[in-house]
């Protein structure tokens, strides 16, 4: 097969139509959601996403059929399960770590801050390698038999997401605490009242930190590939499947997976956006765009 047909369509699709149609369907998803017509936004967004796929040259029949294909759903759900667990654990470890970074100076805080900053940019493959050395049968933790299981992938993603969540939430805590220090002293709040108020006032920033951590977890290939092994029906998730299908030349399937991953990312981010708005909007005033002043504030 020369340069033409399928391959050319993909080339054209990715270089030209991808940004245009992706932003078009994003527009429908996001804008209509903001305007409060949630049901409509789902319909139009899906329609636009389908058009976008058709123009990419994806075979519609096989695309729709792939939704009922059990192995694809399996991959999607495993992705969500692993990254969801990594998100929860990342928050459990990351928020207190962020608080420790933001707390009054203590011995070793500077070192911890440096470590978190470095860990925020850890190369995933290196994390995977490190975990592999720990978890393989001859390694110090080999007796746990975690290698090539979803648990090992969760551990890898937690290691990647926790520093992001800790770093961002630390920044949030520092800023909120600085803004409110004089107020809290002036009101004469007790220690616990200060802590609880700070946590509640940081809620929007904490959701943003969690969003960033989830993004890191679900988009990651290297570490899960090394410790998960990309075993079909066991440890294959979306990113590793895309890498595999692309290298195998099954671009149709790779694109379908890629688009599903993007749509999932969009949905998850919409959820986080909704959560932030919900947390900010103490009394529900109305559902229309005009009444939601301060949405982006």
């Amino acid at each position: 097969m020369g340069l033409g047909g399928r391959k050319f369509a993909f080339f054209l699709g990715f270089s030209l139509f991808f940004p245009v149609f992706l932003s078009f369907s994003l527009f429908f998803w996001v804008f209509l959601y903001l305007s409060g017509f949630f049901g409509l936004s789902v319909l139009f967004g899906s329609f636009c996403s389908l058009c976008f796929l058709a123009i990419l040259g994806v075979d519609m029949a096989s695309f729709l059929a792939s939704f009922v294909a059990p192995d694809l759903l399996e991959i999607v759900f495993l992705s969500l399960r692993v990254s969801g667990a990594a998100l929860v654990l990342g928050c459990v470890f990351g928020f207190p770590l962020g608080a420790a970074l933001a707390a009054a100076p203590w011995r070793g805080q500077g070192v911890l801050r440096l470590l978190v900053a470095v860990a925020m940019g850890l190369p995933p493959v290196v994390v995977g390698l490190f975990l592999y050395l720990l978890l393989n049968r001859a390694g110090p933790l080999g007796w746990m038999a975690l290698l090539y299981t979803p648990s090992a992938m969760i551990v890898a993603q937690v290691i990647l997401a926790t520093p992001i969540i800790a770093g961002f939430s630390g920044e949030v805590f520092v800023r909120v605490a600085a803004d409110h220090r004089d107020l809290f002293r002036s009101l004469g709040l007790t220690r616990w009242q200060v802590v609880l108020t700070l946590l509640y006032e940081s809620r929007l920033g904490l959701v943003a930190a969690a969003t960033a951590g989830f993004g890191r977890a679900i988009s990651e290939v290297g570490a899960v590939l090394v410790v998960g092994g990309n075993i079909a029906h066991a440890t294959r998730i979306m990113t590793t499947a895309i890498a595999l299908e692309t290298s195998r030349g099954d671009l149709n399937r790779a694109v379908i997976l890629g688009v599903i991953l993007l749509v999932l990312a969009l949905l998850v981010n919409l959820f986080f956006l909704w959560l932030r708005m919900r947390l900010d909007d103490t009394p529900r005033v109305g559902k229309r765009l005009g009444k939601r002043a301060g949405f982006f504030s």
Partner: protein
Amino acid sequence: MHAGISASANAAMSASSADSGQMVPLLELREVSLWRDGCALLRGVSLTLFAGERVVLLGANGAGKTCLLSVAHALMNASGGAVLWRGLEPKREQRHEQALVPQESVLLRRSAEANIRHGLLPLKLSGREVKERTAAALAQVGLTGRAQTRAQVLSGGEKQRLVLARALARKPALLLLDEPTARLDPSHTQAMELAIGQAADQGTAIFFVTHDPVQARALAQRVLFLHAGRLLADLPAEQFFAQASQSALPREAYQYLKSRSLTMD
């Protein structure tokens, strides 16, 4: 409104000056100095403030007005001297009797009402009392209709009024105000002054920082003049503004008033 305030102010002043000898002052600063980065921000400031008094602190920008207020409210620790609350070393509980309205309004990301309720948290009031005080404070500053609005979408003037309401709901013995109306338009300023005047009439001591001598004249029983960290004048308001013509005031204070064309020459 101004006439009403000064009339009751005179009455209160004669009463307080009569028996101030025996009374323990609400707030007392003894030779307070404050150093930051090798600069003296306050030099040997001494003052006493009795319950129910209305004191206005005048001074140019950078005179140390906000620093003095922060030290009095124990937001900053003085480098030297002592700050006494009811004749005692200040504790955390003293804050329950003080309330501060700062220059920049700091509000929580909650509804207006929830902001006031949060301010009442340390006072350990009953649920009903909290409800009553919240409603009363909102009414006092004219924000009843905005009770459920999120604080961060209020206008600048409304925010500042909400901060005042939060302070008033605590029913403090001493209300510290740091140029609360500096950035407000006349109508918001008037609403604030009215609410502050009402609080003062109910016996709250007022410590008001401003660089608006007109406002000072309307609210003050006593005027303090701060210049470069020194307290240059501590006079009854009548005397302070009357002496403006005789140049009996310290030179800096006189020039300050003159620059606002408030001298009587």
